[in-house]
């Protein structure tokens, strides 16, 4: 319950600061009109793709974003994540697909290139995955090494995610580097026999409802 209230506090602070920023910027630029023409930026998370070769977690993700107006972009993320959890007597694995949909707002942009700058946004995310809990510890005094195991099952989880990041054009090419942090909160998950999942593909470790994701993307603007 405490984490929930902390989250609500942080989220309202966040939304207030984002919202107030919006108002200020609106006044300055109401004379400039920006017309939507179909445009897409496609990015791949190279950092997590790379670390997948060295660790247990294989996370592949990418995004498609589109500029809706001068400051607002819509974004869809799609990814695949495979992970294991072997700690404190647990032996679990999970793998599956996830998708996120949301938008972000350019907080401050480079005066010479309004695609460069810092942004903040929010997304709704869902993950559909297979999990197998081969061992969950049973706790009792003077007895160690007792486990409960479960058959593989299909589960789903849903979370909300904030995003804070920066996008920088690589010289004058159509390539961008897009780096962002994704603080996230697990809102709902299906459970196998009431067991809370320890890992959720796309979300990460899920024993606490909060988690932080990081992505470092190379993007191409069409």
């Amino acid at each position, binding site marked *: 319950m405490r984490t929930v209230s902390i989250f609500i506090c942080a989220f309202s602070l*966040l939304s207030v600061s984002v919202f107030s920023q919006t108002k200020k910027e609106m006044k300055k630029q109401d004379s400039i009109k920006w017309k939507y023409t179909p445009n897409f930026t496609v990015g791949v998370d190279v950092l997590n793709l790379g670390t997948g070769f060295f660790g247990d977690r294989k996370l592949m993700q990418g995004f498609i974003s589109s500029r809706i107006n001068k400051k607002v972009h819509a974004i869809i993320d799609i990814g695949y994540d495979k992970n294991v959890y072997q700690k404190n007597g647990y032996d679990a694995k999970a793998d599956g697909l996830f998708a996120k949909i949301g938008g972000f707002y350019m907080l*401050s942009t480079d005066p010479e290139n309004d695609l460069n700058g810092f942004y903040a946004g929010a997304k709704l995310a869902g993950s559909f995955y297979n999990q197998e809990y081969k061992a969950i510890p*049973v706790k009792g*005094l003077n007895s160690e090494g007792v486990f*409960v195991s479960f058959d593989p099952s299909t589960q789903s989880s849903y979370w909300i995610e904030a995003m804070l990041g920066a996008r920088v054009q690589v010289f004058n090419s159509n390539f961008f580097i897009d780096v962002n942090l994704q603080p996230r909160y697990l809102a709902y998950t299906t459970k196998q026999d009431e067991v809370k999942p320890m890992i959720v593909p796309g979300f990460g470790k899920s024993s*606490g409802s909060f988690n*932080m994701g990081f992505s470092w993307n190379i993007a191409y603007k069409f």
Partner: protein
Amino acid sequence: MKNLIWIFGVLLLLTSCGGDDDICLNSDSTPRLKLKFRNASNNLITRLDSLYVDVDYGKTKLTNIISSANVDSVFVPIRIDDSPYTDIYFRTRRNQTGSKLRINYDKKSIYVSPACGFKINYENLKADLLKSDPVQSVQPNNTSLTNENSINFYLRF
């Protein structure tokens, strides 16, 4: 820009205290068997001037639970593995052969939390006094063990 750094800071702070997946408080784990003592002659609650309790957890050696003087009750952790019973040995003197008490039960695994995993609750507790002296007989009190609040058996010495 300043605003942004501030938001980053708060969010980092929040996520840094999220690692609660390895702290399990003892109260959330499997409950222990609670035993009290009665005087065999008048059936009144009694204290023992000394008591030694050992339990067979299926290891090569018995595990000593308590060796102490002036005892009025004892908590005995019982087995959580597949064994349908736990053998408990009681002595009132160090060099006694002692009594052997076999507790039979039905087990149920209950999920607690990510940190604690599962705990066991026991139902249909039955005590068989396989070897008497110093324990003369056993009186059942509460035959289900789901918490440590009530007394499961009275041992009559």
